């Protein structure tokens, strides 16, 4: 796509932000163009004026009491342990109390210590990976000692829960206020496996770890195969919302086309494996090795496998090797041992280099990062890493992340990496899960068939008073982003199913909309001729081909089907209901664990779905 926009290189050049090559090219242009020289002179004189202005501003500095406060904090501060959530929480709270004890002269206004800023930074740090996560100390330290003592415990608990995240359930939105809902698809499933590990360990998962869309998408549903050359099909079903009998539930389903393994031109996989000391646990490296052995059985001569380890010094364990040379691959695997500290920065560069060397044109080219989350990038900053991953994704090498082990502090870091790398993020807690991710869904996990898939639903005011998107909280897009092809969104792999649920408050029955008041100054606008009865809304999807830059549009109208709900529908509703209970969602209504079990069991259960029933029972016991 050829886009014309303003050329910012004059500014980039004046600010020293062009790299050597671009600078040389720009200087060559400068010599040719008087117009350009004039523009540069203008920018430079503006910059000079600004710098003078800043230079003449009186030198400001922090006052002495505040400096002293910082010195005291330094005296009492103990360095925070690395990537262990609970330890971090308690250290922070204890040190806060200690610091506050020494704090006699702080302001008398007595502002209540606030945690919101820290929460926001915390979530940004998880999502944006800017570096270490700030603690509660700074916010709380400005309050009085009594205040801190009083709120210490509550805050401690809050942090323990919230350091994972700080997202709220999507609220109900009135169609009169905003009839549209826009979000990016998400095929990650890690949250479900994380919840399973917590429940099997006899504890309720932290609410922030419960991402309902990832729970729903952990399961596959029977959706039709796409027709023609479309990469995926779109279908919908409407039924009752079990936890709010007066509300309706809309289930949207996408299914990626099936690609027979023989039709995949070839698979070039580079395993980037964390072999740091913490990976030696039975449920980490040994589990990965067993799963990997299973995957290798599926590969043949056209495929390539490389293995790069990172720990202390990054090392090439196996260069690109044909997939049928199983002996070489398996013996390289055997050589992997855990030990040393992590330096992922060099490892990832080496992995991408191998991916280039073994590049299979038109095939699957992917770096698979396997780690327990101690991803230390060494000299490179975290943002450089995200940028690298993003940039490599554009060259056709995608990144997938497999998370292992417990105490997985970097849950969101890994989600972010996979997200930027057009990949998937899965959490592997058992060999079964490893099989599901690496073997059974090998094509889905690995072969991307559509990228930047965005969904926009416009609801019909004649039928819908308000709606609420269940889950996808961190995938919500602004409405303008839907048609903006520069905005990145989620990917769909072969055979993947993506499911989204909307809870709907029907129009014209005088029902209250939870959490919102009716408008005082407006009545709903005039519906168009298209706003006919019986049509709930229109679903629009945009997607790009895996290597494309321009999006294509699909539009489908959604209607009440008038038949009883399918067992898939009831099962998806059960999963959502379980998620709402675990999140203690404000919208859970009459939700109950027994209803989750009843709904799930109303259809046929395979092993995977039976497990959900089992987890619902466990959660119910823990709740008591």
């Amino acid at each position, binding site marked *: *796509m050829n886009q014309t926009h303003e050329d910012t290189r004059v500014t980039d050049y004046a600010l020293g932000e062009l790299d050597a090559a671009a600078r040389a090219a720009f200087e060559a242009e400068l010599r040719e163009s008087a117009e350009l020289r004039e523009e540069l002179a*203008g920018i430079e004189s503006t910059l000079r004026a600004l710098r003078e202005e800043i230079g003449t501003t009186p030198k400001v500095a922090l006052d002495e009491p505040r400096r002293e406060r910082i010195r005291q*904090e330094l005296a009492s501060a103990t360095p925070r342990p690395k990537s262990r959530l609970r330890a971090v929480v308690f250290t922070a709270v204890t040190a806060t109390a200690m610091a506050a004890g020494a704090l006699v002269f702080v302001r008398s206004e007595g502002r209540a210590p606030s945690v919101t800023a820290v929460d926001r*930074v915390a979530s940004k740090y998880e999502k944006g990976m800017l570096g*270490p996560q700030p603690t509660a100390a*700074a916010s709380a330290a400005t309050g009085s000692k009594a205040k801190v003592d009083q709120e210490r415990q509550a805050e401690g608990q809050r942090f323990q829960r919230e350091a994972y995240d700080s997202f709220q359930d999507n609220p109900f939105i009135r169609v009169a206020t905003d009839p549209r809902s826009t979000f990016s698809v998400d095929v990650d499933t890690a949250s479900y496996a994380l919840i399973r590990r917590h429940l099997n360990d006899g504890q309720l998962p932290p609410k922030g770890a419960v991402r309902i869309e990832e729970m729903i998408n952990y399961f596959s549903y029977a959706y039709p195969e796409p027709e023609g050359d479309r990469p995926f099909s779109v279908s919908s079903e409407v039924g009752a919302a079990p936890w709010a009998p007066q509300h309706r539930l809309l289930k949207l389903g996408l299914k990626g086309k099936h690609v027979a393994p023989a039709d995949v031109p070839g698979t070039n996989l580079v395993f980037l494996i964390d072999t740091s000391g913490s990976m030696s646990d039975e449920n980490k490296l040994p589990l990965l090795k067993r799963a990997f052995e299973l995957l290798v059985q599926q590969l043949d001569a056209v495929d390539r496998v490389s293995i790069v380890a990172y720990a202390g010094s990054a090392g090439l364990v196996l260069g690109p090797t044909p997939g049928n040379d199983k002996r070489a691959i398996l013996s390289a695997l055997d050589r992997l041992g855990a030990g040393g500290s992590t330096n992922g920065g060099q490892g990832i560069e080496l992995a991408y280099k191998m991916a280039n060397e073994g590049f299979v044109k038109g095939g699957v080219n992917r770096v698979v990062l396997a780690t327990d989350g101690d991803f230390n990038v060494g000299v490179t900053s975290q943002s450089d890493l995200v940028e690298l991953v993003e940039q490599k994704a554009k060259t056709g090498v995608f990144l997938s992340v497999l998370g292992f082990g417990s105490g997985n502090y970097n849950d969101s870091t890994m989600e972010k990496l996979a997200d930027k790398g057009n990949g998937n993020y899965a959490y592997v807690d058992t060999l079964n899960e490893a099989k599901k991710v690496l073997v059974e869904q090998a094509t889905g996990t690995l072969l991307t068939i559509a990228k930047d898939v965005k969904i926009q639903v416009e609801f019909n005011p004649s039928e819908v008073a308000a709606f609420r998107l269940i889950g996808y909280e961190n995938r919500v897009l602004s409405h303008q982003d839907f048609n903006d092809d520069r905005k990145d969104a989620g990917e769909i792999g072969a055979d993947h199913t993506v499911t989204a649920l909307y809870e709907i408050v029907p129009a014209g029955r005088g029902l209250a909309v939870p959490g919102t008041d009716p408008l005082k100054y407006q009545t709903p606008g005039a519906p168009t001729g298209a706003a006919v009865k019986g049509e709930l809304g229109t679903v629009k999807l945009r997607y790009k081909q895996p290597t494309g830059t321009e999006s294509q549009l699909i539009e489908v109208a959604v209607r009440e089907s008038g038949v009883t709900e399918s067992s898939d529908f009831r099962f998806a509703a059960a999963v959502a209901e379980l998620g709402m209970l675990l999140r203690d969602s404000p919208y859970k209504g009459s939700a109950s664990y027994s209803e989750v079990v009843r709904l799930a069991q109303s259809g046929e259960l395979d092993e995977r779905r039976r497990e959900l029933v089992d987890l619902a029972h466990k959660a119910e016991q823990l709740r008591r």
Partner: protein
Amino acid sequence: MQDGAAHWVMEALSRYEAALLRYATTLVGRSLAADVVQDTFLELCRAKREQVEGHLAAWLFTVCKHRALDVGKRERRLRSLEEAHVDEIPDSGPVSKLERREAASRVSAALAGLPEREREALVLKLDGGLSYKEIAEVMGLTPSNVGFILHGALKRLQREIVGEAEVPVRAAGRTS
């Protein structure tokens, strides 16, 4: 306590306090800026050096920004409860009218009149000495967005300061 660590944080303090104070002032006004900056360095005391090193500036400005946003929000809420002070609520961005009036020179007046995003990026660039990439981290943008915003800001300022009726705009074709 290790003297080395103390030295490191205090060194960061003397290097960045002025820029952070001015940055916080653009976000929450002068009266609250010192608290925000103090809190930012309290955070730094608790961070591990090796995790901050290499992107210290971006880290400091990010923490400062979030702290400022939070303090600013609470302050506005408090003030809106006291009707007597309603007219002190910033009306267009956090730089208050009063402070804008104080801005004596044409340059600082032009700077204060910039859209918030442009002013923020400029302060981070010229005062904080941050690179595009670091600004991108602080503001949650991409580095090329930052270039675009700064370019727009400089063009606008040039028009304001130089009083040029028209500053030429060139377009370049780019493949994306």
